[in-house]
Each structure stands twice: as C-alpha cells, then as structure tokens.
C-alpha cells in the first residue's frame, strides 16, 4: 500500500471538509512507528497503548499550528518522546523510588510481560538498555531500532548532533560490556 506523503496529509488537514480524512491518514501512517517508539521506552503494553492515544490527541490539537519548517514525523516523535519522559518522571515521583528501583521495576515488568517474545539474548539486551540513562536509551533506540539519522534525532530531541553522537557511542560501549559480561546471568 502506497504511503501518503506528509505534505498531502497537511494539505487535507488544512481544509475543514477533509480534516478528518487527513487525520485518519496520519494515524494509519504513524501509529505503529509511534507505538514501538513508546513501547521500547515504557516497556509495558498497556502504558504504551494509553500514551499512544495521548500522543495523537496532542497531534490533533496542535496540527493546525504545525509549521513545515520541520518534518511531520519528527514533530510527532518529539511529542511522543516528551509524553514518555513525562510519564516516566511521574512514575518515579508517584512511587517515590530512586532511578535504580524504577529500572528494576521496568526490568521485572519486562520478564513478567506476556507480550515479550524475545529469547535470553534479547532479554539481556533490553536489560542492558534499562541500565542506561533515559536520554542515552532514547538515542540508542532511535538509532539502533528506528534507524534514524542524527539530524532527525537532533530535531526530535532538540540536542546537537555532536552530543547525540557522543551519547550514542557511550551507550553502545556500555551495552557491549553488559552483553559480554558472563557474570550477568538471567
């Protein structure tokens, strides 16, 4: 199925009569990408499901104000990323737990999840990711899984490309050490 161009979606959305149609096209085009981006950050499916809907509500509310000086999908990614960070911060505050314990909690939820299909190596990789600071995890996910360019990640996170590169390399090294550490048995 041919993907609709962002420009076409934006044009249709600007017309009252075709606004709903444009929004449906936008959802169809981005819902899965946004879901996986969110899911890899919050781990739990139900949390991801709620957040995806919140993301698209914000998209609906603000799409009329969107300016084409950035790409549509980077703009939606930014909204999704901010929603995830807000969610994780609230979770920390609500539970009044230090970061280590939140990571532990996410790790446990990963093991207990009925929607995790990976093998032991995949599980170890996810646990390695959970040991990273939030921003490094974000960058790693966008580079490793979504195959985004630094420019695009920079646009999404509002961070310079240089800083992103550094963060990504640090993250990769940490993961490599974690993965090669045989003391960590799952």
């Amino acid at each position, binding site marked *: 199925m041919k993907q609709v161009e962002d420009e076409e979606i934006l044009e249709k959305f600007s017309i009252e009569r075709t606004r709903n149609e444009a*929004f*449906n096209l936008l*959802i*169809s085009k981005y*819902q*899965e990408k946004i*879901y*996986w981006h969110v*899911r*890899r950050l919050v781990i739990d*499916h139900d949390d991801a*499901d709620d957040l*995806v*809907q919140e993301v*698209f*509500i914000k998209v*609906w*509310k603000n799409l009329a104000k969107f300016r084409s000086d950035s790409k549509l999908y980077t703009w939606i990614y930014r909204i999704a990323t901010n929603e995830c960070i807000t969610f994780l911060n609230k979770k920390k505050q609500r539970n009044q737990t230090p970061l280590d314990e939140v990571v532990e909690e996410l790790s446990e939820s990963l093991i207990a999840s009925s*929607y*995790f*299909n*990976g*093998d032991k*190596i*995949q*599980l170890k*990789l*996810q646990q390695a990711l959970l040991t990273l600071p939030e921003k490094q995890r974000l960058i790693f996910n966008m*580079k*490793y*899984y979504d*195959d985004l*360019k*630094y420019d695009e990640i920079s646009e999404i996170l509002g961070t310079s490309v240089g800083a992103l*590169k550094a963060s*990504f*390399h640090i993250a*990769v*090294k940490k*993961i*490599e050490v974690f*993965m*090669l550490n045989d003391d960590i048995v799952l």
Partner: protein
Amino acid sequence: MKNDVENNEWKEEAPYLASLPILNPFGVPEHYFNSLTDAINTTVYTEKLKEAIPVSGFSVPDQYFSILKARIVIETGIGILQSLPEKDGNTIPDGYFQKLQANILARTIEEVTAEISEAAPAQEKSRIVRLWHSDLLKYASAACFILVTAFGLYLNQQNFTQESTISDIANEQMLYDIDEQDIIDHIERNTPEIQKAAVKNEELETYILNNYSQNDLASEIN
C-alpha cells in the same frame, strides 16, 4: 551514504552487539494495530467534544461548596455512629422469629383461603351462626325463662287458691247440713281407746303437785 556510514560506525566499537540480528522482541495483542486507529479516533473524538462543549451545563446552588464541608463533617459523624455496635439492648424470646414466621404463614393461608371462598360464590358454604355467641341473646333468653317460670308459678298459685276455697266452702256447707248430735257421735266413735281411758283427776293433781312448784304453776296459769 552518509547515513550508512554514521549508522555503521558503532559496529566497530561493539562487534558483539553488531553481530546480533536487530529484532523487535516485543509483542502486541492479536489484531492490535487493526483496532488502534479506531481507538485513537474515538479518543480524539471525545477530546473534540470536550473542546466543543467546554461547559458541562450543570450548575450548583449559591454557597454550595461552602456548605459542602460542613455537610461532609456531619455525614462523617453519622458514619462514626454507624460504626458503633448495632445492639440496642432489646432482646426477644428464643426462637421468636421462627414462631413468628410460622404464625404469619398460618394467617396468610387463612386469608388466602377466605379470599378464595369469597371469590367462588358457586361453592358458597352454609353459614354457621353460634347461638350463644351473642351476649344479648343470652340475657334475653334468661329473662324469658324467668318470666315464663314466674308466670307459671303465679297461675298455679291462683288455681290452687281457687280450688281450696271452693273445697272449704263445700265442706263448710256440708257441716251445716249435718246434725250436731251426729257429729258428736261420730267423733266419740272414732276416738282411739287410749284416749278414752282418761287419767283420774286425783292422780293428775298428785302428779302436778309433786313435779311442779307453785311458782311454775302460777307463771303457767298467767
């Protein structure tokens, strides 16, 4: 080309990680993405409604929220009372409610039976009236009995008096008709022998003088 280079640079630094296939280990419920569009549309529609109708249309009376706190306190007070034991000190006999239930059931059956018999006039039973059920009837019967008895006695008395009077008159008339000498003779002939053998006057005088004082005799004569 630039993208390929920057996306592959890290592979030299992390050869083990690079050797792993890039797989998505997460799963989703079956047909999740088929329904996700509808779910998002529904959520967005709800948000649109909220924006289109920002005011709910409901209002509250003046000073409502200032009174609300006091009301909650009162309600909480009631809640404390309700938390007290429910026993009020009153007791009932053992097995009261079991008997009560049986009594109610029995009365209910009676009522139902009465209603059924009223509702079925074709099967109307003869009505039983107890004769002595009414006090008025009892007293009236007693009064009648007394009156009848008294009247009977009165009549009987009257009859007896008349008969005796008639008999006396007849007897008296017969006596007048009988000669006086015949009566005297008849009496003398029918007097028993013992009465005929009279005690001599001298013996009687001696007996009296021996057995009674002069005072006794004087008082007897007087």
